[in-house]
Structure formats: C-alpha cells, structure tokens
C-alpha cells in the first residue's frame, strides 16, 4: 500500500462567476521513504496539490488516500492529529513565531500532541541538534539568518517524527549557500532517517536533489520521472 495514493484529483475554485480549475485529473502514488519533487511554473497547481496532500484543503473530485485512508474518513480533530503526528510542514516564508525562542518554536507541535510534557525538551533538543543549531536554542527568530530560520522550521517539522515532510519552496527565500544546507538536511532526513519528503519547487536544480520529479503544467501531470543524476549538497555544508 503506497503512503500517498492520488487518482484523478481535481480542484476547482469558485469565485466571482469564474471557475478556476487548479487541478484537472492528477494521478500518482508515492511510497514510504521516497524523495519526490513536484515541479512546475507558478499557476501550475503545485501548491494546491500540496495543500490537498497535507490535509490543509480538500479536492473537488477524485480520490486521495493517505496511508490507505481518505480525508472524508476523518473528523476535524483526527485531521488535526494526523497533521500533527504524521505530517511535517516547511514553508517558503518559514512561519516561525517571532516572539518565541528557537526551542519554543520547535516545541510547538509537541504542545498539540499526546507526547508527555517531560519528553518535550529532549525531543526538541534532538530535532535542533539534527539541523545543527544547538548554539541558537534560546535565540528568537529575528536574531537568525534566513537559512537558520528555515533549519529551525525543519526541526519543527521533524520533532514529532512524521511519516512525511512537505516542503513548499523551502529554498525560495534563501541565498544559494543556505539553500544548499537546507537541501542537504532534507536529503539526510530522507536517506539516513527514512522520512518521506515531498518538495515543491520551480527550480530544476533544487528539484534534482530529489529521487523523482513530478512535473505539473496547467493542473495536469506533464511528466513523472526518476532523477538520473541526482545532486548532492554535501560540498560546502557548514554548520
């Protein structure tokens, strides 16, 4: 059973008398442990697809099964629980809480989980160690560089040890060096810890860090191919 199974997925936005067809029949499946990049120009429907995959939105038509179950099978609370325990999100704009320390930001998903409170600190420390920012633990995001902010966001996505990490243009606001670091961390999480990674990007170079690329165009899959010459971001990684 694939972790993610999508069949004939459609999404239509209704508004002002015009229906916008963001997705027009998309089908694919993703196994556990894959690193998939979803590529496409803006307006191709890749963000819409990510929202549906991340249970942040619902499809208009078609079928989406996560771990064998569809969103219709769950109550709102169960969906919140799945987002919390099985999915991790990394956004282009980092979305850290500005007034909270790195530690508090990383602990945030734990506060909505059933993890007992005395385990929070150790889990958060582990996640922060995994992205190499132990020395920044008490800092607030305003004291961090863009790359560091995104690494904190990855630690936050990681802290509940999710099945899948959704990364929406994670390098979009970073310089190339910081972008490399972020991509290396994502590759490490995929290869060494077995997290499934779904990466959204419009850059071919970034997409080629994945093992498979799904290209979207006008709400349809244009191609779905494995990456032959995969980039590895190990060179030049500095903590």
């Amino acid at each position, binding site marked *: 059973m694939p972790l993610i199974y999508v069949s004939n997925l459609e999404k239509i936005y209704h508004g002002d008398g015009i229906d916008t067809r963001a997705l027009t029949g998309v089908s694919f499946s993703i196994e556990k442990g894959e690193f998939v990049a979803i590529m496409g120009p803006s307006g191709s429907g890749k963000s819409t697809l990510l929202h549906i995959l991340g249970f*942040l939105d619902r499809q208009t038509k078609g079928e989406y099964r996560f771990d064998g179950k569809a969103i219709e099978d769950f109550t709102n*609370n169960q969906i*919140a629980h799945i*987002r919390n325990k099985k999915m991790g999100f990394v956004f282009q704009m980092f979305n850290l809480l500005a007034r909270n320390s790195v530690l508090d930001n990383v602990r945030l998903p734990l506060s909505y989980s059933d993890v007992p409170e005395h385990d929070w600190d150790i889990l958060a420390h582990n996640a922060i160690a995994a992205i190499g920012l132990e020395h920044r633990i008490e800092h607030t995001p305003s004291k961090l560089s863009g790359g560091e902010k995104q690494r904190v966001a990855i630690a*936050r996505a990681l802290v509940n040890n999710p099945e899948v990490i959704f990364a929406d243009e994670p390098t979009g606001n970073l310089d190339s060096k910081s972008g490399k670091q972020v991509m290396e961390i994502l590759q490490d999480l995929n290869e060494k810890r077995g997290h499934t990674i779904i990466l959204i990007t419009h850059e071919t170079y970034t997409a080629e860090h994945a093992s498979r690329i799904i290209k979207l165009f006008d709400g349809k899959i244009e191609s779905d191919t494995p990456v032959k010459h995969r980039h590895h971001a190990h060179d030049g990684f500095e903590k």
Partner: protein
Amino acid sequence: MKVLLSVKTTYSALSAHWSRSFLTILGIIIGISALMLISSLGKGAQNLILSQIQTLGSKTIAVVPGREPKGPTDHAVVESFYGNSLKERELASLQKKSNVPKVSDVMPLVFGIETASRDKETFRPMVIGASHLISKIFNLVPQTGTFFTDDDVAGRSSAAIIGIKVKEELFGESDALGEKIKINDRNYRIVGVLPKKGQVLFFNFDEAVIVPYTTAQTYIFGIKYFHRIIVQTETEDDVPFAVRDIEATLRSLHGITDPEDDDFFVGTQAEISETFTTVTDILTVFLAAVSAISLVVGGIGIMNIMLVSVTERTSEVGLRKALGATEKNILFQFLLESFTLTTAGGIAGIIMGTVFSFASATIITSLTDLDWKFAFPMTAALVGIIISGAIGLLFGIYPAWKASRKNPIEALGYE
C-alpha cells in the same frame, strides 16, 4: 492542554502590545475601581452608623409610642415623636420587677430643640429630659461637676448638664459650673459639663442640655408623656424575654388583645442595626450596579481589540493549525488571552479601588470629626474578580471562535 506553555503563549501575545493591552483593560480597571470605591464607602458609612448604634449597647431596648412605622413615609413616624401612649403609669408598670423581671434599668426620655441663652449669647441645643441613668446608658461622665440625682428628678430641680459645644457657645473660655442659663424664661443651674462626645446615634451630646425629665416635661415642653422609655437588661440574652414581657405588660395595661392594635413598639439595638444594614446594603448594591455598566462598556472594548488581534494573527493561527492545533486548541488560546487580560484588569482595579477607598477614608476623617474607618470591601473584591474574568470569557468567546474557524490555507497567507 499544557498549562505552563499556554500561560507563556498568552504572556508573550499580550506583552507584544503592552500599551494596547493596558488601554484595552482600562475600562475594566475603572469599572472595578468604582465598584470597590462605592462598596468601601458604603461599608464605611454602615460601620459608622452601626458603631454608633452599638454605643447604645446590645442590652438596650427602646419603647416608642405609636405603632411601628412601615416605612419612612408612614405617619407612624410622626406619631413616634408626638404619641402620648407612654406616661408615668406605663413607666411605673415597666419598673415593676414582677412585670418585667429581666430588666435592670428603666429610664424615660423627652427631648426637643429649644433656645438656651446666657446674657446676650443664645444657642439652640437639643434639650434632653432624662434620669441620672442616662449617664450609665450613654456612658456620659461630666469632665467637670457631677450628674444630677434621683432627688433632682423627684423635686423637678433645675439642675442641668451641658455639652461642650453649648458651654463654648454660651460661656466661651470661662468656667460654666455653677453658672445659670435660661431656657423658656426659666433659669437652670449648671451642675456638670460633658467632655467632647460627638454624635451618638440620634443625639449629638456636644450640643445637648440634659435636665431631669420631670423638669423638662413640666417647664420646657409642657407635656405629660414621654418620647421614649429606654430599658436595659442585665445581659444580652435577656433582651428577647424583656421585649416579650414589655409588650405583654403594656398590652394588658392598654387592654390590647391584637398586636396589630399596639399603640407602642419596642425596638432593640439588634433590630435597628439590621434595618440600617439592610438600607445601606440596598443602596450600595444599587450604586455598584450603576458602576457595573462601565464594565459592560469595557467588555465591548475587549471584544473589539480581540477581533483586531485575531485578524492580525491570522497567519499564526494558520501555522498552529498546520502544526496540528485543533479548533479547540485555538479557541482555548484566544479565550485564555482575553480572560487573562480582563482578570489582570480586575486585579489592577481592586488595587486602585483600594487605594482610592483608603484615600477617601483618610480625607473624610481629616475633613470631618466622624470616626470613619477604612473598610476593605471583600465582597466587592471577590465579585470584581469574578465579573472581570467572566467578561473576558463572555466577550472573548466570539473573537476566539472566529480564530478557531479560520481556514489554515487562507491563514498561512496563500490565495
């Protein structure tokens, strides 16, 4: 929900906008302060009156002519000053141990405002006709001279005790003892001067002239009845029995079978205290209710600011939802914020109200010669803290609900 983290989150959200948070709860602070101030002043006034009533002593019973007034506009109030149902006959039968065994002292009382003069100086004191027992009952000890005796009462003597204000008005600095003053064209010899006493319930003894009641009845007021008969028992526990016996004695004397037809009524200190307490309590509650209106206005202010805050923090809400927050989590977070905000306002209001109340008590004491004491209104403080918390929950629920219903995608800033 994890309490410590929630508190931390709340604190960081509120501390991000100190001045806004403060202005938001200003209405609550003012409302609770007003509530506290009114309650404190009400309680202070109540304590003052009660302490004056208590100077009468809990063993004191007043027999009043006329039936018991049903309210302040009842004409029985007038009757209680001019009714003639209490005379020597009633006094004598109340003094009989066989009628009212529990009684230790029985004293008739007549009083009225008259003009007293000495040479060209005049003053209008309260003239009180009593027996020497008034000294014991109201704890009056002359600073110079002595009290008149039973012989003075029997002989309708013109011995008079004067209050300190009367002495100052008529004699100035010079000695008054043995001197004479004129009331209704008749001379009275001053046998005693009272020290400063102030207001004791209905009487201001500083402005009083006390003469034997027989003298006052005959030569000053020209009446044959008493305005009051004051009765004292040995102990406080005897009061109910004495009241019962007084009523029975006077009814049998007046041939009354139905208590509805009573031409007198018996008041005890406990009863008077109770009446005063009820009246001042009602007044305090009424004024407090008026001040509570500002709390409602404050609550609307809270709701307004919370709605702004929810809109401003749309992306925070979206993020929290993406990270697994349920609607309940978000609702709770914003409710806790408004609750904390208003409760803090309540606490600040209690502190400010206490300061204002204390200042008012100090000012009242320094401007008047009243024995006014600062009273901390415990009930108002408790009610204030509960109301302010309740306002936070009540007016916070709608903004919190709006936050909890936000769509995470919109909230994250996507189209």
